[in-house]
């Protein structure tokens, strides 16, 4: 037998390989590489917590230190996924508590995390360092108190966008005086009053604190003290509101900001008093990321602020910035890579600001590195979209939301097929796309032909027929996630492309025309898919098979149907009979 590579050498080589897909490739080389790789993999990413069971994950990777899990489908962000749908973290954490006593990091997204789960984390993982709960729910400040009291080596606690049952602000005091390892704290979603003295002491004794993102309830008066205790901050999130304007406070704040020489990222600024904005001017030049999407700052002040941030790479802002502000942005911020413009009045019938497609066109022309766009507006034209596409063929993420549904090109009254077609045609590396406005099947033809690198596609109120869905499923080779609401897509395209679904992470369809019969058929024929029907109005058996299901969530899995479904979710299985847990 020829010589073989000593395991230790291979392990050492593999320790330089971080990317999951590279590691997956390594594990396919031969049996012994598969075995060595699985023993030395330390990080795991599970994009759909129901695609695999904790037991299978643990069996394959016995020595993990860091796990990321995602639960609910993306449309849960917009209230389309019913409460109690699922995505429970507890079973995972309980299994990890037994298998990985040395687990250091947990990153959870759109999952339900109970206080019991947090308690397990606090008590079972001796070297726990990073807890990120993005858009999660199900826990309270009591759970946070247990984490604070027990995790001696905690570096990062991030609760972005999570719904926390805010029982009391005292949990922060549970960090013992001996605890000094905090590097990143994000508690923006908490609303109760926290003990400011506890916060100040915590900030003061953690010399490596780099990220501090605070909730709305932290008053302005406190900020200068905090900043003085943490001049090493790189990222800050804070309101700048105050009940009264003291001249004293202004200069204290200005001084404190100037002291933060390393500040690169700024967010929050809810209820900011415009007259305090100039305190930020000294740090603007150093900022690479600015998130003003919670800040009700209007145009002139906004332009003044943004035009001083010449090194800005990421800007999230409300549509108060208007076209004029975006033109100024395009002139000042040549390093801009990501722009998100959110609506200040999404439910208003009439535009409340002068923000149109022109703003986006200007930024696309002026910012050569712009590759990621999320833009809410009230009108669009094919010509503007084509211009944007030609200006920025380097776009990788393009999400456009025209607020009123079915809006055509405002100049020609045509559908926006051609415009979006230009986007997919010119932007060859486009990975993520969201469509809006008046769209026919034609746009899907373009997407199917050109969107070869497209991984995630979001559709709403678009298309004419099954042909549209067929174009997407048959043409988009790299598609992983497809989410659709209120489109006239039905059985034919879905059944004809059933095999495609096994190559994707998931498909969500709500308020479409997929019949119950087709769901049963799909469930029967495709055992490696979970075909979940969500029917809040009662058992789908109680109406004829050809009637459309309300909501459908299909995902590939190696674990079979899940066992934690609520009463209104059914998995179509191979017996084509309903099974609910």
């Amino acid at each position, binding site marked *: 037998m020829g010589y073989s590579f000593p395991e230790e050498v291979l392990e050492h080589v593999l320790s330089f390989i971080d990317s999951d897909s590279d590691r997956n490739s390594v594990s396919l080389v031969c049996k012994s590489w598969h075995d060595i790789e699985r023993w030395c993999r330390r990080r795991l990413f599970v994009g759909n917590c129901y695609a695999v069971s904790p037991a299978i994950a643990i069996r394959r990777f016995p020595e993990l230190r860091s796990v990321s899990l995602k639960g609910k489908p993306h*449309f849960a*962000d*917009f*209230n*389309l996924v*019913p*409460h*109690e749908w699922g995505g429970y973290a507890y079973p995972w954490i309980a299994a990890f508590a037994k298998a990985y006593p040395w687990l250091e990091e947990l990153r959870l997204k759109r999952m339900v995390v109970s206080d019991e789960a947090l308690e397990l984390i606090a008590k079972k993982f001796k070297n726990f360092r990073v807890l990120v709960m993005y858009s999660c729910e199900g826990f309270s400040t009591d759970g946070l108190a247990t984490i604070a009291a027990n995790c001696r080596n905690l570096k990062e606690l991030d609760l972005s966008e999570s719904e926390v049952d805010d029982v009391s602000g005292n949990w922060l005091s549970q960090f013992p005086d001996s605890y000094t390892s905090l590097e990143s704290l994000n508690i923006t979603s908490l609303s109760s009053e926290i003990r400011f003295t506890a916060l100040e002491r915590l900030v003061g004794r953690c010399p490596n604190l780099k990220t501090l993102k605070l909730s709305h309830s932290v008053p302005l008066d406190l900020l200068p003290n905090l900043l003085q205790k943490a001049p090493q901050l790189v990222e800050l999130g804070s309101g700048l509101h105050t009940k009264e304007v003291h001249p004293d406070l202004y200069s204290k704040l200005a001084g404190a900001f100037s002291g933060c020489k390393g500040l690169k990222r700024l967010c929050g600024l*809810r209820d900011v008093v415009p007259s305090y904005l100039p305190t930020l001017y000294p740090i603007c030049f150093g900022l690479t990321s600015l998130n003003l*999407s*919670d800040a009700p700052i209007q145009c002139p002040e906004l332009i003044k602020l943004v035009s001083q941030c010449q090194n800005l790479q990421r800007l999230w802002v409300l549509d108060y910035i208007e076209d004029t502000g975006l033109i100024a942005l395009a002139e000042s911020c040549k390093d801009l890579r990501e722009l998100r413009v959110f*609506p*200040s009045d*999404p439910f208003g*019938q009439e535009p409340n600001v002068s923000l149109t497609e022109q703003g986006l066109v200007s930024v696309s022309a002026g910012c050569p590195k712009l590759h990621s766009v999320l833009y*809410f507006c009230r009108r669009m034209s094919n010509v503007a979209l084509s211009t944007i596409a030609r200006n920025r063929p380097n776009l990788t993420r393009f999400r456009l*939301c025209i607020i009123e*549904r*079915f*809006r*055509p090109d405002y100049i020609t009254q045509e559908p926006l097929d051609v415009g979006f077609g230009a986007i997919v045609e010119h932007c060859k590396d486009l990975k993520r796309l969201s469509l809006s406005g*008046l769209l*026919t*099947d*034609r746009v899907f*033809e373009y997407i*199917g032909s050109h969107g070869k690198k497209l991984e995630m596609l979001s559709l709403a*109120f678009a298309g*004419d*027929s*099954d*042909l549209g869905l*067929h174009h997407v499923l*048959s*043409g988009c*080779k790299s598609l992983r996630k497809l989410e659709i*609401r*209120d489109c*006239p897509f039905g059985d*034919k*395209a879905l*059944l*004809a*492309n*059933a*095999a*495609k679904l096994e190559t994707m992470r998931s498909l969500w369809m*709500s*308020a*479409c025309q997929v019949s119950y019969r087709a769901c049963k*058929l*799909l469930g029967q024929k495709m055992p490696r898919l979970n075909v979940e029907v969500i029917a*809040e*109005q009662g058992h789908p058996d109680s109406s004829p098979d*050809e*009637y*459309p299901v*309300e909501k459908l969530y299909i995902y590939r899995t190696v674990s079979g149907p899940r066992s934690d479904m*609520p*009463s209104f979710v059914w998995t179509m299985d191979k017996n084509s009979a309903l099974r609910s847990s």
Partner: protein
Amino acid sequence: MPSNTADQSPDSGTTGMSLKDTELTLGLPGEAQVVIVGGKSCSKRGYSDTVDFRFRCCSGESSAKAEKVDWPGKEISGPGKAPDSKAQVVGWPPVRSVRKKALKSCKYVKVAVDGAPYLRKVDLEVHRSYQQLLMALETMFDCFTISSNDLEESKIMNPVNGAEYVPTYEDKDGDWMLVGDVPWNMFVESCKRVRLMKSSEAIGLAPRTPSCTSTT
């Protein structure tokens, strides 16, 4: 990557490609055939069936389920006229509820319907009157209809089982009241949660007085 069982030319790029060419192989015998008419497909079942049956309709939660949307075509009166644009559609525009909270002081309350296994949350701040709230509830819970926009006259009814519902709410003091008894702003201020109670169970609550207003 496994190829589709259907036969296709992926880059044909012509509108001539129709689903008929794709040889749908998972069709059951006797299943409705799809007829391709000018690039659109029309199910044998026909569009009218989907419209008539409100509660199984293609556009589920969206207010587009109302009479004016012409699936699969787009003959909508007026350029870009969205049907029923006044009513709020669940989840549209796609703004995260956390973000909505950031923009306004919002007042999310849970809404329960007797007999339904699920709760919804509704933001009272978004609506300006009882009519708007009722319309939003009708959109959110497809299982009932509201017979009139006038709160005093309206009946909330589940046509499937004929049950009538009465909208009630729990106020700050923990008392259960009938929705509509107080001016709208006062209601928003004091409402902690809403329950659509079956009429048969709402006997203990004070009957609506004829003089109460249903406008703000």
